[in-house]
């Protein structure tokens, strides 16, 4: 009767749910054969994962894997940058002073309320196209040794698109940071006031309280929502195709168009996303358990 007081058991609801699920699946399978005008052909997909390069004499990754690597690369970078930005913004939003709170608030509201495409355009074409050329990355890379170039390409992708990569990375991070800031803020606010007081009563400075007491506890609380945010980030990274970055969904689209195998490519790409996102969710779940061992 009381929620959560009982172990799961098999009841009438199960029968209804199961029956509904089975009926739905049966109906869909029946209709797939009779309605959908489409001949499935999955044969081309494996070749786009890896192919045998006759010149080099070994297997090399093809478009889908390359795209996947780009997606993972930009997602990881963006998560790192977004976490740092988000933490700073989140701390700002809990500040005693008005100015940091105002800045944090304005940032979060702006990002959360504007659709990604206009934001990306605004940022890429007007802001980063002013700032990034100042860094002179292009000419620096022209003079770089092959070894340096290799490292840079491993970290940031093809040298000719590095400015795009950085812009895409920053815009993705900026978008994610707004959400992470909210998560961090909630995490910080969830740490009871008594913890701050206990910290200051043993003589710790404000910074030390943040560093040794509040953030460690806040982080534990924010791991699950951050995991969700990371997954969203991976999925939303497809946006950067607009600025010429060859990530997974863009290349999948190109293959789908070239091959005229629309569903197979998309379903398979969906599966690839699912795999990395779900793996990510599981990994974060582990992390959460490990960190939560000692907290009630």
């Amino acid at each position, binding site marked *: 009767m009381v929620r959560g007081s009982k172990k799961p058991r098999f009841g009438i609801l199960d029968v209804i749910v199961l029956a509904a699920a089975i009926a739905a699946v049966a109906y869909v399978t029946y209709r797939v054969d009779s309605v959908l*005008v489409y001949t499935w052909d999955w044969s081309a997909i494996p070749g786009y994962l890896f192919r045998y*390069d006759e010149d080099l004499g070994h297997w090399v990754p093809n478009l889908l894997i390359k795209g996947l690597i780009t997606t993972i690369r930009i997602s990881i970078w963006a998560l790192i940058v977004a976490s740092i930005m988000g933490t700073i913004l989140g701390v700002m939003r809990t500040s005693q002073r008005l100015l940091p709170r105002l800045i944090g608030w304005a940032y979060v509201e702006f990002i959360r309320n504007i659709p990604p495409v206009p934001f990306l*355009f605004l940022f890429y074409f007007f802001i980063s*196209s002013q700032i990034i050329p100042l860094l002179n990355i292009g000419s620096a890379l022209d003079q770089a040794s092959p070894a340096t170039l290799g490292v840079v390409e491993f970290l940031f992708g093809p040298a000719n698109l590095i400015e795009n990569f950085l812009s895409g990375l920053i815009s993705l991070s900026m978008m994610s940071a707004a959400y992470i800031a909210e998560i961090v803020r909630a995490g910080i606010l969830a740490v009871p006031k008594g913890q701050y007081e206990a910290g200051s009563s043993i003589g710790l400075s404000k910074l030390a309280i943040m560093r040794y007491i509040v953030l460690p506890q806040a982080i534990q609380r924010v791991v699950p929502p951050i995991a969700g945010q990371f997954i969203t980030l991976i999925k939303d990274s497809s946006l950067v195709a607009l600025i*010429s970055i060859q990530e997974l969904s863009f290349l999948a689209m*190109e293959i*789908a*168009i*070239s091959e005229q195998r*629309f569903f197979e490519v998309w379903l398979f790409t969906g599966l690839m996303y699912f795999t990395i996102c779900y793996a990510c969710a599981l990994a974060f779940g582990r992390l959460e358990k490990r960190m939560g061992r000692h907290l009630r």
Partner: protein
Amino acid sequence: AQSVIEDIQARGKLVVGLSTFVPWAMRDKKGDLIGFEVDVARQLAEDMGVDVEFVPTAFDGIIPALLAKKFDVIITGMVQKPQRNLTVNFSHPYAYLTVGMAANKALAEKDGLETMEDWNSSDVTLTIKRGTAPGETAARLFPKAKVRQFDDDAQALQDVLNGNAHAFLTSEPKPAYYVIDNPDVLYHPFGVGPFDPSASAFAVRKGDPDALNFFNNWIQYRNLDGWLKSAHAKWFQNRDWKDQVE
């Protein structure tokens, strides 16, 4: 201001923006870019004595990138239209398109669509790829019909195959190929067409007459010596390239 032609030469590299559009530009099995446009750009670069770099970009991002000087030129089967020409400059045409139509047999029969007049009805749904010439064709020939725009032909085709829409319009020779591929479902309605010849051209930024002059003359030059024609034929007259892709 300095012309982009000088930039290209100083850099030793021609940067071309394009988006995938069969058979203009697409990926082969190795993941490399192939297609009519790719040949054109390669030849253009060769004639200029520079390397070529392709930057595949989603169609929505391609014009802003050109305007923001991320590319030197867009070569992607872009059709000249007056409204577009107000924003960018177009070169002389280097290829011509005609629009064909493939329709869903069962749906057309059910709704009794026979003549051109029948098709011009608000009950009819047509599909096209966004930003391509068939849009105009549909609006001119069938002003009453509903038009759905997709990001790609494959989607537009599937919508018709699924029976969601009556017919789709795209540049020849694809409609013909699709009918051959799906003989039970698709057919060419009322045996007319192809319609509406239109022209594809390079797109460049405004305010650069030197570039425009150079590209115009290159196109004319390669037109007169027949290179453009044979390159076009290679990709549009037959589907020998198919096994490079599938």
